[in-house]
């Protein structure tokens, strides 16, 4: 039950962020330092999310089929595959490696 509370609070906060953007005067965005932080932070968050999803397992690191998915997705992106193809390639690599017995 308590998960519901945090879940709904998360939804509320997510909407608050979104709406806040529409209430802030556009002039603030022209501050170069603020827009720069927004840019570096998004790169950092996406890099961190990629790594956590690839090797994170609770509070430890695990090297498993997800690493294969990461590599396969990287190769697909290198060859300029569209987003959807990249996602499918990642899934196929992880599923294929598990079929071969690598967890």
């Amino acid at each position, binding site marked *: 039950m308590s998960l519901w509370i945090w879940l709904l609070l*998360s939804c509320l906060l997510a909407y608050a962020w979104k709406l806040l953007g*529409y209430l802030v005067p556009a002039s603030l965005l022209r501050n170069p330092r603020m827009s*720069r932080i927004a840019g570096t932070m998004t790169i*950092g968050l996406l890099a961190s999310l990629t790594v956590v999803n690839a090797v994170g397992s609770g509070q430890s690191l695990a090297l498993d089929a997800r690493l294969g998915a990461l590599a396969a997705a990287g190769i697909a992106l290198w060859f300029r595959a569209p987003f959807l193809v990249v996602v499918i390639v990642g899934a196929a690599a*992880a599923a294929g490696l598990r079929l071969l017995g690598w967890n």
Partner: protein
Amino acid sequence: MKILKSPAVRIGLSISVATGLYGVSFGALSVTSGLNFWQTMALSLLLFSGGSQFAFIGVVAGGGSGVAAMGAATLLGMRNGIYGMQLNALLQPRGWRRFAAAQLTIDESTATSTGQTDPQEQKRGFWTAGIGVFVLWNLFTALGALAGGALGDPKQWGLDGAAVAAFLGLLWPRLKGREPVAIAVVCAVATVLAVPFVPPGVPILVAAVVAAGIGWFSHARSDEGLEPDVDPYAEHHEHRHGHADDADHTGDLPADRDGGTA
């Protein structure tokens, strides 16, 4: 139909399909993370921001607390505020539309809108991608959540690999030049180092603080990375480069190849 001739609408629709399908992965992963069907749907309907949703269930799956899950999801949702500022300046929605636009403010709708130059197209792109992704993402979330149990372990189908690939796919277009790559590497290393020492979800916050620090103290180009995560116009730009005289050469847009989806 005339509306389908609009390039922004076409791109918005193809992005909607690409992102919507990915909702299957979220729905299936969410129920195996321990959330029930309605909790999964509440995240897709109310939170509606892919990265934050995956972060939330990721923390829960890793045994993290509800507070940690909320922290990770909320921090990741921060960039939607930045998108909101940009879109507010571009679209200037009024009345109830402003509240609807806020909920639809995500990577994909922002990318589709800001890639257009004509104000009318910016509006069309935003609403097409925003509503399109919302509808399909929720439909496929429900499908994934319902089929997730029947499909067995989503890992067997590589759905956790799909999540890894999707995040790399969102990061990739931003890695143009040496500096963004360096930021990504530093934050990835910071994440790996933090994992064993802090609760699940917190390593992402550590990386965010590191990234903010880099942004605060560096004095390079200020526009770096401000563009949204998905750049559906990348191929178009490259193409236009070689055909500067072609005013309307949408035939090579990626969206056009998916014309059937329109």
